[in-house]
């Protein structure tokens, strides 16, 4: 059980985030959705107010909070009708540097990430020909003196155009020379301001929702060896051990979306009168909203459980994965309920439902697809045969 003092702090945290979000209303996000624009002003405001530095230790200029508090911040952004997807990477991508970077790298990057003067918003893993099968990725970094020469291609790498740095997962030893296929991968920090136009070409991908995602063509990109994080060949492990944090944070974003949908749907169902009564008086409208709410509350419990385990440094892989799946399913159910409750108006952009509907659908696929969570639980929790 959480202590009262902690609950009071979480409430203050929520209100703090809401105060920032209040200045960025539905009209702000709608306009951006229309033009596929990046919410630069919002991201600046929430960064300046220190919220994205929540996980960075105080010695590096952050607030040194736990994953629970961090997850509450992202939840509130989505709950206010915004989209934390535009800025969440600034909060957690630095974890790779924090956990595995050298002292020099931490001192060089973390304070500036905390105050927002360096944007670490991009994380390059996915490739067009290998997708979910990460260890099979083809982008290769060959060491030449004090540089790596990188060649390859990445796809769906988000916010590259709005970031100063990118964490890039590459192969440094060919797979056939490795004992395990998860060996031989390495993590590089790419300075995007130098790289773009000098071996890195960025092409935006138009998607269903506004997400600033891109395709990367990497052609003899030079990355200084000092930008290698940790040891060469251990990159996959470094990425994996950030996954639980990511799962919990993404679960919280889903919870935020879900709450937003339920609040909207409930309000609309009370106010909209057809057949001489509020539509919410019909069980056909009321029950699905109630059901979605119940599923959301249950998912939230799993997310809090996972976060508390994580913050106590206990194993939380199962809980973090299950929280992500439950929360993504619950937000999607809530989205469906909301659009149905709104009838035709759910499809009209000015009500924001269709925008959030598109946004929350993504969580079924990215950053991790639901199927991969099921296979994780099947294999690692239930000890069923590995299915892939």
């Amino acid at each position, binding site marked *: 059980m959480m202590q009262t003092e902690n609950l009071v702090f979480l409430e*203050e945290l929520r209100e703090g985030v809401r*105060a920032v979000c209040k200045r960025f209303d539905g009209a702000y996000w709608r306009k951006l959705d229309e033009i596929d624009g990046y919410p630069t002003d919002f991201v600046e405001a929430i960064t300046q*107010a220190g919220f994205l530095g929540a996980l960075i230790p105080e010695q590096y200029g952050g607030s040194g909070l736990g994953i629970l508090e961090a997850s509450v911040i992202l939840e509130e952004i989505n709950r206010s009708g915004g989209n934390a997807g535009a800025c969440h990477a600034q909060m957690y991508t630095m974890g790779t540097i924090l956990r595995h970077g050298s002292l020099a790298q931490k001192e060089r990057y973390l304070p500036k990430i905390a105050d927002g003067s360096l944007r670490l918003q991009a994380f390059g893993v996915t490739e067009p020909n290998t997708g979910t099968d990460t260890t099979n990725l083809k982008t290769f970094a060959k060491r030449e003196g004090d540089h790596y020469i990188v060649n390859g291609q990445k796809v769906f790498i988000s916010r590259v155009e709005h970031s100063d740095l990118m964490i890039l997962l590459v192969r440094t030893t060919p797979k056939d020379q490795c004992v395990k296929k998860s060996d031989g991968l390495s993590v590089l920090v790419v300075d995007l301001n130098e790289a773009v136009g000098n071996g890195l070409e960025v092409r935006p991908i138009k998607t269903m929702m506004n997400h600033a995602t891109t395709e990367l063509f990497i052609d003899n990109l030079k990355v200084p060896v000092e930008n290698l994080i940790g040891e060469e060949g251990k990159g996959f492990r470094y990425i994996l051990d950030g996954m639980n944090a990511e799962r919990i944070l993404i679960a919280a974003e889903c919870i935020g979306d879900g709450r937003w949908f339920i609040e909207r749907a409930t309000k609309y169902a009370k106010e909209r009168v057809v057949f001489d009564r509020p539509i919410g008086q019909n069980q056909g409208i009321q029950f699905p909203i109630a059901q979605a709410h119940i599923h959301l509350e249950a998912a939230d419990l799993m997310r809090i459980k996972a976060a508390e385990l994580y913050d106590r440094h206990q194993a939380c892989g199962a809980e973090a994965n299950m929280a992500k799946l439950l929360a993504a399913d619950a937000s999607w159910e809530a989205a469906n309920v909301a659009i149905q409750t709104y009838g035709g108006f759910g499809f009209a952009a000015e009500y924001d439902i269709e925008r959030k509907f598109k946004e929350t659908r993504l969580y079924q696929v990215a950053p991790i697809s639901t199927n991969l969570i099921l296979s994780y639980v099947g294999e690692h929790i239930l000890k069923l045969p590995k299915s892939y």
Partner: protein
Amino acid sequence: MNIFVLVKRTFDTEEKIVVSGGKIQEDGAEFIINPYDEYAIEEAIQKRDALGGKVTVVTIGGEDAEKQLRTALAMGADEAVLINTEDDLDELDQYSSAYILSEYLKDKEADLILAGNVAIDGGSGQVGPRLADLLGINYVTTVTSLEIDGTNVKIVRDIEGDSEVLETSLPLLVTAQQGLNEPRYPSLPGIMKAKKKPLEELELDDLDIDEDDVEVKVETVEIYLPPQKAAGRVLEGDLSAQVKELVNLLHSEAKVI
């Protein structure tokens, strides 16, 4: 600079307000710092940062008002004082509020006191000026710019769309008008620091105030919501017919021409 800011917890007038039994229903209402007080807090923080000193935020109210004080501390105020009248008084008015504040402030040697121009609930704009009067210090209302140089103060104040430039001196009370600054929101480090900042709670006894001294002088006769705005009417026909109809209606129905 010893700076004090008067802060009031009010309901959010942008949210739905329900009146029943002659009272505004607190259940379900959202409560905020009076928006004009936010300008006052912001100005106080800026002046402290530029000139040194300390910012103390003061409110009269109940336990619930602690939340608004915490927000002010998270914005950057140094200390907070809650004058809790919950157990002693049923009602407050401009007179009693100013009196209580003056008893608290009389020996505090404030250089600068800031307040909101009005509180958006009562809207009287009296507490600031009354308090200055009781303390025997200068005051200027609806300020949109405040420059302090030693004890000299240069002020621009809003006078219904025009502005007036004044010079005065400390100690001084000013009430803040929109346009004075852009209030900050609490930052995450601010929220965390606020946890450790002092929040003092006082009751009337602590200020040697007798309940009889603060009996309200204002009687509230009735509280009601403004009438619902009727739906507009769309005029039909071609442009000249519409103009004709409009003039006609302004004359016969609205009786303004």
